[in-house]
């Protein structure tokens, strides 16, 4: 005899699910989904943070050092005796490369010039040192002397090895000179348009090196007198030059958010150490020549990392309702899976209750039984979460890393899932143990009006959500429950209405046909069938809604980006469009561009500080970004009316204003110039209108405006400069990317150093990129509810098949074919799913028509709202077709696989 195992129930529990492949797979899938729903949000946020950081760094890559660059620039204005106390800590900064040192004189001014003097001739030349520059010129860092450009050397009549003097001369109010003798160590040819030698100008990052600027005309190049650092340190103080040291450090382009945070903290500590009198660095700076030096740390990394953090926080806030909804949904699925498993073990539950097992024992047995599935769900859920974030989350080149934190969260999720399963089993055992509640005389079973309760809760939650400020509505926790409740309530109404209609109307199908049989079988309402139909309907309703939400958020982001940025790239051009007549001030200087002039004005008698956009009506509409939804098209239609002749200058008003189309008012450019305007239209948003969100913007044709303004404000007139008080700012809008636009402008001879702003930056800085990513999360959630709908439909088909096991045998003996019976069940499932589709459509329509609760950036117009498309209906119809086919297939297979004798023997 086989040796009996002690505590057999406990020993059998861990592998019990493994011996039930169907249920085991269901539980594993449910726990995996739950683990993924717990792990995905933080993974999503971390990916959002790293993506935002990478985007920010990418946008600033190659740009000048400063607030817009992640690279670090440290400067000090003096010659220190020992550079190591300053450079060694810099080299040790995390995430940064080794420092590259540049030293130069910055003493030139309108009255003082750096020069080289020889043979009675004088030529401008600024002392300049850069790590590696002299070796690149073929010299030695230890060599004394200077390297001058060939042109300068020729102008001075010098050849290599000739003596010369370098220093500062005063050219105004006196003739003071401070020169020191040196030798010409070498010459170099300059790169075209640059002060740098050709050997250096082509090196990576050379365009970002610190070069001396002519204080009178910054666009002029000051020739360099390239020296070794020792020579610079020796000469600069003696010629009354102002020595200025720059140490540049490049940020690792693949820096992680954690490394960036560490780098920000370390660079801040470095800056603090310069002012700490106890440090060697401070001592060196204090002893600098010609005067104690001040050290500055310049980097945009704190700003960029802060923006990435803000984006991640925004992403977290925007995703939270959907993440919570996903977790609740996954939790319900998990509980439902275990409840279904419990229902399949109803007899066993009665057995264990009869045998006196305590609920706590059953709770622990369930936990033991689900333990393996939960353990497997940790890696599976983690992988699913990664897959979801990679597929639908923020786009990232670096991938989504598997971290220890992620593993811990997945384990916590699995633990919570295990507890939920155990509690479900425990409550079920308690309910089985207390059967007396159902049968004791004098106690009637309390019938909870679930339907009424659902409707009441839905109404209350809907009212609560709609009373929340529009700007906060998307992130309020109630928003998570709102779509579910609305969908559930409408589903209940539709399913009850369908049952009522069915009860009142007999089928027209010919008696004996599959359809007639299906109609006869759907007559008695089975709670289980109703419940499964409701699950399918709610899941489909939520799926349809997520499609509209995803589209609404995506298009809303595109609209808001257009309203914020106006176009892919804008660059401020200070002078090049001024003083050269109408053609230059208005006509697009390069392909795919348009010029927009801006300044603030007063509108009417009481609105001051109103942004004014003066646009070129001819080119603006083709260049500007009009968003994704068409909500901005109303403004586009009004643009051609701006140059027309009206009683007053035609203007478009953008934003919330009491003025309406056809209204006449005035704009006031300053206290002496009041311009009558005629409102051709009022629109909620317009490309570039939201430089100050919430404020009305006035859009006017630039030529119409220039003809009216006073000559000092007219940028077309000779002598017009951007420095004049009240001058309009000229901004070039272009569809090109910043580097391409700069190249185009360089080719056209237009200054490209102005402030560049991009649509990408606007999306990041205003949290819209987080909205885009949140939309991806919504889509992933939609995939889950679609899977739930399909699973619900499959279970419905299986349960109907189980229900008909015995009757199918009898009907076959009465002459029905198996195919007829399968077809009848397919009709029945089709009817249930069609009802679900109707309920889902109704629910989605109601949710779409209600005031929007999906816009997490509602402060930036236009308001995003769910947007349905005919394709959504096709999705639902596709689900209907798939489920009917599945029902037919299941019916056919199961009917064939069940021997009649076994069915009748086991029937009860």
């Amino acid at each position, binding site marked *: 005899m086989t040796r*009996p195992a*002690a505590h*057999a129930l406990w020993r*059998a529990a861990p592998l019990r699910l493994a011996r039930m492949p169907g249920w085991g797979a269901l539980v594993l899938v449910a726990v995996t989904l739950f683990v993924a729903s717990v792990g995905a949000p933080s993974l999503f946020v971390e990916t959002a943070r790293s993506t935002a950081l990478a985007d920010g760094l990418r946008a600033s890559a190659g740009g000048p050092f400063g607030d817009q660059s992640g690279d670090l620039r440290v400067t000090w204005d003096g010659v220190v005796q020992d550079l190591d106390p300053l450079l060694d800590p810099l080299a040790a900064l995390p995430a940064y490369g080794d420092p590259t040192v540049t030293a130069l004189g910055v003493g030139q001014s309108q009255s003082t010039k750096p020069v080289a003097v020889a043979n009675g001739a004088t030529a401008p030349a600024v002392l300049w040192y850069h790590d590696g520059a002299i070796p690149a010129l073929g010299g030695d860092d230890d060599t004394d002397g200077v390297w001058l450009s060939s042109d300068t050397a020729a102008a001075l009549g010098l050849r290599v090895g000739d003596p010369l003097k370098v220093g500062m001369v005063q050219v105004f109010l006196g003739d003071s000179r401070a020169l020191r003798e040196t030798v010409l160590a070498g010459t170099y040819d300059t790169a075209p348009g640059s002060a740098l030698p050709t050997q250096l100008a082509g090196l990576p990052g050379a365009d970002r090196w610190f070069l001396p600027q002519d204080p009178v005309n910054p666009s002029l190049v000051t020739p360099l007198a390239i020296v070794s650092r020792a020579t610079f340190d020796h000469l600069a103080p003696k010629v009354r030059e102002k020595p200025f040291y720059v140490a540049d450090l490049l940020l690792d382009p693949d820096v992680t958010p954690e490394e960036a945070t560490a780098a920000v903290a370390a660079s801040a500590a470095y800056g603090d150490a310069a002012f700490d009198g106890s440090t060697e660095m401070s001592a060196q700076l204090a002893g600098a020549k010609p005067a104690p030096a001040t050290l500055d740390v310049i980097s945009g990394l704190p700003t960029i990392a802060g923006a990435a953090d803000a984006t991640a926080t925004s992403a977290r806030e925007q995703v939270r309702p959907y993440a919570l909804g996903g977790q609740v949904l996954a939790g319900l699925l998990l509980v439902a899976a275990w409840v279904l498993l419990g229902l399949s073990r109803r007899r066993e539950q*009665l057995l264990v209750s*009869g045998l006196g097992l305590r609920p706590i024992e059953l709770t622990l047995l369930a936990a033991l039984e689900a333990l393996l599935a939960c353990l497997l769900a940790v890696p599976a859920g983690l992988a699913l979460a990664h897959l979801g974030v990679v597929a639908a989350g923020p786009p990232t080149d670096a991938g989504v890393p598997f971290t220890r934190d992620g593993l811990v969260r997945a384990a916590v999720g699995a633990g919570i899932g295990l507890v939920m399963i155990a509690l479900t089993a425990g409550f079920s055992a308690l309910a089985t143990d207390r059967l007396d509640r159902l049968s*004791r005389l*004098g106690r*009637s*079973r309390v019938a909870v009006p679930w339907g009424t309760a659902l409707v009441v809760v839905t109404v209350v939650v809907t009212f609560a959500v709609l009373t929340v400020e529009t700007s906060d509505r998307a992130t309020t926790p109630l928003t998570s429950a709102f779509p579910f409740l609305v969908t559930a309530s409408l589903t209940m109404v539709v399913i009850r209405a369908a049952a009522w209609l069915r009860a009142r109307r007999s089928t027209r199908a010919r008696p004996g046909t599959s359809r007639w049989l299906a109609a006869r079988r759907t007559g008695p309402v089975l709670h289980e069938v109703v419940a499964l139909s409701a699950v399918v309907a709610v899941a489909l309703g939520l799926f349809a809604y997520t499609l509209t939400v995803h589209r609404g958020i995506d298009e809303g982001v595109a609209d808001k980006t257009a309203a914020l940025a106006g176009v892919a790239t804008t660059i401020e051009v200070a002078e090049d469009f001024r003083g050269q007549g109408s053609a230059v001030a208005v006509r697009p200087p390069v392909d795919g561009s348009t010029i927009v002039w801006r300044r603030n004005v007063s509108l009417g008698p009481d609105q001051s500080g109103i942004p004014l956009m003066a646009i070129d009506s001819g080119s603006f509409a083709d260049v500007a970004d009009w968003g994704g939804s068409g909500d901005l098209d109303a403004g586009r239609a009004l643009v051609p009316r701006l140059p027309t002749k009206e009683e007053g200058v035609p203007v478009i008003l953008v934003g919330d204003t009491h003025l309406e189309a056809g209204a006449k008012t005035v704009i006031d450019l300053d206290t002496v110039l009041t311009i009558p305007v005629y409102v051709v239209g009022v629109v909620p948003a317009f490309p570039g209108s939201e430089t100050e969100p919430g404020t009305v913007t006035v859009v006017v044709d630039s030529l119409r405006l220039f003809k009216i303004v006073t000559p000092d404000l007219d940028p077309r007139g000779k002598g017009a400069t951007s420095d004049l008080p009240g001058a309009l700012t000229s901004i070039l809008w272009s569809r090109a990317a910043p580097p391409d636009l700069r190249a185009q402008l360089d080719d056209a001879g237009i200054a490209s150093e102005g402030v560049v702003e991009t649509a990408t930056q606007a999306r990041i800085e205003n949290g819209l990129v987080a909205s885009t990513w949140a939309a991806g999360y919504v889509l992933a959630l939609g995939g889950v509810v679609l899977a739930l709908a399909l699973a619900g439909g499959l279970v419905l088909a299986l349960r109907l098949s189980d229900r008909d096991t015995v009757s199918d045998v009898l009907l076959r003996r009465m002459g029905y074919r198996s195919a007829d019976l399968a077809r009848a069940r397919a009709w029945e499932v089709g009817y249930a799913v069609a009802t679900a589709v109707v309920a889902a459509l109704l629910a989605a329509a109601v949710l779409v028509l209600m005031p929007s609760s999906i816009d997490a950036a509602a402060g930036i117009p236009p308001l995003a709202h769910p947007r349905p498309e005919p394709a959504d209906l096709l999705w639902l119809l596709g689900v209907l077709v798939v489920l009917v086919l599945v029902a037919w297939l299941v019916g056919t297979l199961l009917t064939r696989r069940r021997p009649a004798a076994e069915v009748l023997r086991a029937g009860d």
Partner: protein
Amino acid sequence: MPGIESMTAVSCEDLVKVFRSVTGETHALRGIGLELVPGALTVVAGPSGSGKSSLLTLLGARDRPSAGRLTVLGSDVGVASTRELRRLRRRQIGFVPQRASNAVFPHLRATDQLRQVASWRGASRRHLAEALDAVGLTDRGGHRPDALSGGEQQRLAVAIALVGTPALVVADEPTAELDHANADRVMDALLAVAAAGSTVVISSHDDRVTHRADRLLRLRHGVVSSETSGRRTAAAVIDATGRVQLPQEMLGLFPDRRVVVEADGDHVRLRRPEVEL
């Protein structure tokens, strides 16, 4: 009287059971009064719907009465806590439900099922073998229920109920799915556990079962319609040629005057030949 109280394993008085449903109330039991003592096997008989299963479910402390008083092994089932009833069922009551598949764990081997239940009742390993042997499943102990026939599952359910000789054994039609030989085997096992001091109460329609009862209760419409006491035993004489002379009242069981004689250890069993399989 204290003496009688201590001898009574189960007592009920005006026992009423009403089931509620959406279509109304069903009065399954309408005032049952009885006492069951240890060492006896009581059979509850009656037509379908007479309340047999409801009564046995109550006697097995698996449900509470709607009215009246029911005391099982000293516990008042109507007022006892759920925990108290659970403890009672776990340690002192063996129960065989009407459908055998409802009484076995589908995922455990037969011996493991007995072992598990025996551990709750504090029974020794010897009891496992005895219980399996009593129902004729000694060589089937290593199988799971899905490898057992319906009859074998029923016998396993009986074995689970009997293992450890609980103070009260309640069996709802324990021989319904069995052939006569196995039904007799099960009845023998039930009688043996009664003889060992347990109180045994079963329901059955089968005359072969009712004839072997110490006490027969007939239910009709939720009330006891008749009660017969005493197992029908009588002295008979075996003559020198081996012929047995049965009493007249037993002779009626053999109308064609033919009999099958079965030897089973120390017992000899007589039965009608037409029921032989």
